[in-house]
């Protein structure tokens, strides 16, 4: 298998640990509390989520030796809930990719479709769960990075509403878009992990939604995460549920994918849900808006990697700018450089209004379209990915083609909504996922609907 042929240098995985798909970058066990709702469960953590004393590389040579001195809030909460962390998983460098092939440590193979990519950027996390190396995994989703690998590996992934889960300790790529979320073999498992990690965090102002009166009112005076037990919502009861099928996201999809998708919709209808067609004209510019915003935020976020406080050093020949530029030439892979440069370009004088400002307009348009769609639908459905898993190496040469593969997932991040990807069957090229999108803080509804497909 390709992952074995090119495992990449620098993985810290013991010889006697069976990692035939190359899902892990570092294998290290960290025991959690003795009891709790996740006692006895094992969790693999994406390598851009900080773990106290355990190397966190973001899949980058820049951070090959970086060891955080603290835990991310989500990791702390998992340990408090009794979970055991089993290691750090492979990923596209800094979360920038759809295949887990841009990792500086080599690609991961797809356990559900050997020889094909596991999806990205949380490909190692999805592969670890699919291969049974961990009960659960954490991923991060900036434009689909939890849902895409969940779909390609035949497992469940949840991208929470922006603000539900703390981002403290997540190495930032695009702050306004990314959320940490769970990957599991079934919907109830993913929901149980979400129960453990969701909720306000005083160290992350983007989770302080408990102070918002409108939200507190809607959830009986409580933060949505405290008002609900997500795992209890996985009861498969979709009687009377109204499902809007987003036609714009079905039309361009691969034939075999659409077949599996339609068959899953039949299952939902058989269980008592009703479906109707919905058109969201704004999704036509979602990919463009997503990449302009994500790249712009990345160009600013990744400025911290200067080889002085942390990161690979460029040495001390020359002044700060020269040393900095040299460290970044050596430490960053090509996709990361591409996005930093395009982001810098989009924000530079003369182009800001043309790209960045218009992308924000497109984002507002999308939000408006989603709001209108939710007037008549409880959830919106589409294929998670328009295509089955790519073959390893198939897509690396054409970045634009790769960006287009994210068409179905990025609208959700731009609108800050929750979404789940659940397995919808197999094609001869690998698994297909069905995506269900909910209104803000509507996690219960998408979990309930997703569980009806199991």
């Amino acid at each position, binding site marked *: 298998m390709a992952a074995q042929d090119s495992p990449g240098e620098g993985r810290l995985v013991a010889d006697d640990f069976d990692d035939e798909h190359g899902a892990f970058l570092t294998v290290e066990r960290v025991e959690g509390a003795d009891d709790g709702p996740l006692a006895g469960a094992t969790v693999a953590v994406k390598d851009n989520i900080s773990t106290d004393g355990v190397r966190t590389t973001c899949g980058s040579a820049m951070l090959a*030796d*970086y*060891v955080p*001195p*603290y835990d991310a809030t989500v990791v702390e909460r998992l340990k408090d809930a009794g979970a055991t962390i089993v290691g750090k998983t492979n990923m596209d460098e800094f979360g920038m990719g759809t295949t887990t092939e841009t990792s500086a440590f080599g690609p991961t193979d797809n356990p559900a479709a050997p020889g094909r990519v596991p999806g990205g950027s949380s490909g190692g996390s999805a592969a670890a769960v699919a291969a049974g190396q961990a009960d659960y995994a954490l991923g991060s989703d900036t434009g689909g990075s939890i849902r895409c690998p969940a779909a390609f590996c035949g497992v469940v992934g949840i991208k929470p509403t922006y603000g539900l889960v703390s981002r403290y300790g997540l190495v930032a790529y695009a702050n306004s878009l990314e959320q940490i979320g769970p990957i599991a073999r079934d919907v109830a498992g993913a929901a149980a992990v979400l129960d453990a990690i969701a909720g306000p965090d*005083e160290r992350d*102002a983007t989770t*302080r939604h408990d*102070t*918002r009166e409108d939200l507190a009112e809607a959830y009986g005076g409580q933060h949505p995460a405290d008002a609900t037990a997500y795992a209890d919502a996985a009861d498969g009861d979709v009687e009377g549920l109204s499902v809007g099928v987003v036609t714009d996201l079905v039309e361009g999809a691969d034939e075999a994918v659409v077949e599996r998708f339609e068959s899953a919709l039949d299952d939902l209808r058989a269980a008592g849900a009703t479906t109707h067609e919905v058109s969201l004209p*704004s999704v036509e*510019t979602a990919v*463009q*808006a997503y*990449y*302009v915003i994500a790249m712009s935020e990345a*160009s600013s976020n990744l*400025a911290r990697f*200067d*080889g*002085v*406080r*942390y*990161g*690979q*050093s460029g040495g001390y020949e*020359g*002044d*700060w*700018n020269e*040393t*900095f*530029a*040299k460290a*970044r*030439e050596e430490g*960053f892979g*090509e996709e990361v*450089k*591409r996005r*930093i*440069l*395009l982001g*810098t*370009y*989009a924000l*530079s004088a003369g182009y800001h209004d*043309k*790209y960045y400002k*218009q*992308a*924000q*307009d*497109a984002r*507002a*348009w999308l939000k*408006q379209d989603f709001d209108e769609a939710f007037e008549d639908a409880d959830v919106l459905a589409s294929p998670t990915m328009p295509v089955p898993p790519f073959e390893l190496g198939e897509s690396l040469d054409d*970045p*634009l083609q790769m*960006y287009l593969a994210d068409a179905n997932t990025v609208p959700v991040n731009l609108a800050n909504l929750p979404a789940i990807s659940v397995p919808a069957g197999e094609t001869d090229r690998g698994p297909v996922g069905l995506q269900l999108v909910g209104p803000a803080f509507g996690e219960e509804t998408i979990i309930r609907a997703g569980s009806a497909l199991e």
Partner: protein
Amino acid sequence: MTDTDAVDPEEVRHVAGLARVDLDEEEVERFAEQFGDILAYFDALDDVPETDREADLANVFRADEVHEGLTQDEALQNAPESEDGRFKGPRVG
């Protein structure tokens, strides 16, 4: 989208300078070609209609209180070079 949209290599070098990322010549050539296609694709944003942006914002500042942070050793532990409890960097200009 066609190859005629290619961005001038000089422009790629200029942006790389702004972003403080050195590139080798091959990367400059490759990026110049790819950026043309990608930026042409972004032109679709010109067709986005004007939308009212309802700013639904709430002040979420917490109380300004002193909390325990990283120790000096912890803050320095990932620095490639340090001296006398400080980060050591190249000269500034």
